[in-house]
């Protein structure tokens, strides 16, 4: 009887971790911790990353940072604007070759993106919630909510 309870507990234990695991994979928008920005709306983030209007609520020009990690990038744009990476490429081809806007700076990985945000007051980037461990950045939007 005792053994059966233990087996059941072992089976259901991972389920207790699921919400936490899902939250860890949430894509969040981060800014510099010293910034006065407490939150951003989804449309403000769309305007910044899609090159429409890169102004932070403080009035400063935002410096958006893309991450080269394909899986993260794919998830970010799917959740932000419901677009796949080829569609994003097509979108930027129109703006870049017409000289209307430039795409975000591309960091090679999440660690570099976090470092750039932590050292630049107007930088803004995205990452998984589980990657936000240091003190230099602040979460201003969770794309899952």
């Amino acid at each position, binding site marked *: 009887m005792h053994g059966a309870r233990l087996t059941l507990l072992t089976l259901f234990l991972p389920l207790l971790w699921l919400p936490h695991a899902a939250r860890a994979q949430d894509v969040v928008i981060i800014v510099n911790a010293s910034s006065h920005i407490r939150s951003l*709306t989804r*449309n403000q983030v*769309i*305007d910044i990353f899609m090159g*429409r*209007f*890169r*102004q932070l609520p403080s009035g400063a*020009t935002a*410096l958006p*940072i893309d991450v080269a990690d394909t899986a993260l990038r794919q998830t970010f744009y*799917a959740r932000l*604007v*419901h*677009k*796949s*990476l*080829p*569609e994003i*490429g*097509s*979108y930027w*081809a*129109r*703006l*870049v*070759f*017409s*000289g*209307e806007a*430039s795409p975000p*700076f591309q960091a090679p990985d999440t660690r570099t993106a976090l470092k*750039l945000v932590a*050292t*630049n007051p107007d*930088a803004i980037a995205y990452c998984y919630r589980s990657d936000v461990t240091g003190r230099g950045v602040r979460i201003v939007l969770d794309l899952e909510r």
Partner: protein
Amino acid sequence: MRERDELRRPRAVRFRILPRVISRLPTLALLLIFAATTAHADALSGSRFTLGAFGTLGAVYQNARGLAYRRNISQGHGARAGELDLGTDSLLGLQVTGDITSDLDAQVQGIVRRNSEGVWRPELARAFARFQPSQAVMVRAGRIGLGVFLLADALDVGYSYLTIRPPVEVYGMLASDEFDGADATLSRRLGDGVGRIRVLGGRLPFETALADGTVTTTDNARIFGITADYLYGNWQTRAALLDIHVPGGSDPVAAALAQTGFPQAVALAGRLNRSPENSYGAEIGATYDGDPLEAALVLVHLNSDYVNGPKFNSAFALLGWRIAQLTPYTTFAMTDSFATTEATGLPPLPVFEPLIAAAQEDETALQTTQRDFALGIRYDFAPHVDIKAQIDRVWLHQSGLIFDYNVPPPGHTSLTVFGVALDFAF
């Protein structure tokens, strides 16, 4: 001192200087690109130079004998029946952008394509300096993309849009995609979206190719335009106004009509030679660019205050539905000419017949009444590369777009156009 000298110059001289300044703006942009070589990069800007390339390898086949299908009115050659034509949609573009300061950069773009004379030649498509002191203001000067109509920001970059070519009934009527001058764009947050106003002005050099092989080059046209956009989520809406001013020019047919001495012919000659010539256009449109749905609706009205100028109502609608890497789409495009031809008043004598025919051709050369229903599919099979296949069914009554070599012209006719294209942009 120089300013005082400038003020002493007669007004007419100052007006002659302005076109010279405008014509040198692309050169200025090239110099700024070289200036960027001496600038220093900061941590977030990366390299001072960005190189880009785009292109399309496209093949077109159509089935109507005596007709030649064109992408726009500046193309001197079209796709003839039974021939696989590689020149209608194919091109190669290279671009370099150089950052000079954090607010100032310059862009130069060259394109190789089949020109109005049917020869493959490189041309300078863009060369401008861009000054953006804040997100609210952007000013550009040099050779700039016209981009007045919605989705027409980068007409040459096939990878940037869904179809093989922008619907010719709307975008093919534009003889030029660039102008030499300046534009200013003001943006601000409006509600939860972004409002944007763009004002542009300058010289609009363009070429119009005719079926008989002649190419009309206009160097002295001036353009002024204003667009207002509202961008919200996946939506973009636009209203635009455009004015094109062609100062003078003589029409050989008008000269011949005037010499006949017939009052009606002389009056028509006066209207054909009207100087200056103004054309003006208006556009409203909306696009939804989401996933899986992509949709667009654009309405254009173009009118002229001279007899043989462009007079159209045009429209197009697009629907695309993305399924993984495939996007099937359909478009409907139309242009209806509302121009009326004026009779010469010449008696129907054999001696006048060539002149009567020439006058009628002169009046209707740019008029187009044409419809197009297209089905196509885009396949994004690799990053930055796509392949497309498209079938267009085109009905036309008269067309300044499609060359008609039939004698006599058949009037109402139709054709089916098959196209495949490989696009890339890096």
